């Protein structure tokens, strides 16, 4: 028995039914949700009896120069399926995404880590401060335009 990945088309329809106009873009394998709605969609996916994606495997962020992409991977223990959910946040400043900590407390450290290393803020996170680096560290090292210090 392998963990199956949900079909993106069906998933998108399912989400659209509950949150119309929440899907930003979808391809054969990828599904992008509009950033302001991501937390709501996540809550829906977790509580929906047909999906029951109750376990958040990981949250990661990717820097695509012109935008950041936050990737959620979640799994249902009951149906043994998982899905990726993505959201694009444009801008190089400190873009904001709604936090999912209310839905999955397990997002706590990962969101802090993303803020620390990637510079994406999570709105609604109660303790949004650096986790691995020290306060006052210049910049966010996982960004592609981060310059290494000349000397350590």
């Amino acid at each position, binding site marked *: 028995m*392998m*963990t199956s990945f949900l079909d993106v088309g069906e998933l998108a329809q399912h989400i659209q039914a509950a949150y119309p106009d929440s899907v930003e873009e979808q391809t054969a394998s990828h599904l992008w949700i509009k950033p302001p709605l991501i937390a709501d969609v996540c809550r829906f996916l977790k509580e929906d009896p047909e999906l029951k994606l109750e376990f958040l495997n990981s949250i990661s962020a990717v820097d695509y120069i012109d935008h950041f992409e936050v990737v959620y991977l979640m799994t249902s223990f009951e149906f043994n399926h998982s899905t990726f959910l993505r959201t694009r946040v444009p801008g190089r400043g400190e873009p904001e995404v709604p936090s999912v900590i209310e839905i999955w407390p*397990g997002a706590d450290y*990962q969101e802090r880590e993303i803020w620390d290393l990637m510079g994406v803020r999570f709105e609604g996170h109660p303790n949004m401060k650096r*986790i*691995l680096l*020290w306060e006052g560290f210049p910049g966010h*090292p996982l960004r592609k335009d981060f310059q290494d210090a000349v000397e350590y």
Partner: protein
Amino acid sequence: MPIRTEPITVNIGPQHPSTHGVFRLRVTFDGEMIVDVEPIFGYLHRGTEKLAEERNYTQIVTLTDRLDYVASMTNNQAYCLAVERLMGIEVPIRGQYLRVMAAELQRIASHLVATGFLLQDLGALGTPLMYCFRERERILDLFEMLCGARITVSYMRPGGVYYDAPEDFWPALDRFLDYMPSYLDELEQLLAENEIILVRVRNVGNLPLDRLIACSASGPILRASGLAWDWRKADPYDVYDGLEFDVPVGTNGDNLDRFWVRMQEMRQSLRIVRQCVEQMPPGPVRAELPLVLRPPKGAESYGRVESPKGELGFYLISDGGISPYRCKIRSPSLLNLTMIKDLLIGWKLADMIVNLGSIDINMGEVDR
């Protein structure tokens, strides 16, 4: 009349005998009772994810060794799985068996360390720890035979393992497999019936299952709370599909259950290794691959294994170059630490150390 008391804040770590690495906890005590905990980490942050963006796909294997340094084999395996999925590489069957065998030996080694340190934290002055390390030494010896290193093994490569095991490895492994169960019996005898240990671990540090799932916890602590979820069963990788083993499950989710689950998993791992030795077919161990790998542009993959600490995943994104565009490491230790407030608040100082030991974190993996 109640006595006026003040909470007292103590810094435990980064250098403390039982924080399992450079881990710092700012703990507020009311007498001996813990009222607040604030974990602070980052003392071992080496920027593995950033470094990975500047290394080619094979070189990153050496970085993964250093994540969870008591379980390098499983780290290698998770990363190699991710790269193989990224490129669509088929690993030769013998290579898969060798990987599973090495990973299971590593699981025993890692659980031995976890058990030993749990008992060290209980205050057993190193005796069980020494016994555990003595046995771990035998496993590390096997690893040295296999790949020339004991801790930072770099044994696996995308597409298999670097090389087949030497001939004298198999008799040595047989000896180990014959010997190990008797040692586990002895360890259980020393510990499992000891009244002092039982009163210290039974019904201490209970973790409710729903909270664990919400907190993204995985691995033995999830199973100790009653959910039989093992990625080796749920999402079999390599040859786990064809191997027989049980997933031990606890009921209470207390320290005793976590300890018991680890003990049982060691026995199951021995079973898996034995099956691997019996079933292993001859053949190549590594897919024919160029020295420098170039996955297709835009490909992405998530490779995960059930590491001794939980779900270890590598999320790789390729931009068509020789190094990944993004390499995210989903480390079980960090996510298991999310539970720390549930685990520690309300318990006593002495329990705090044991609870922390029972979830078996590794700072190399937490800080990456």
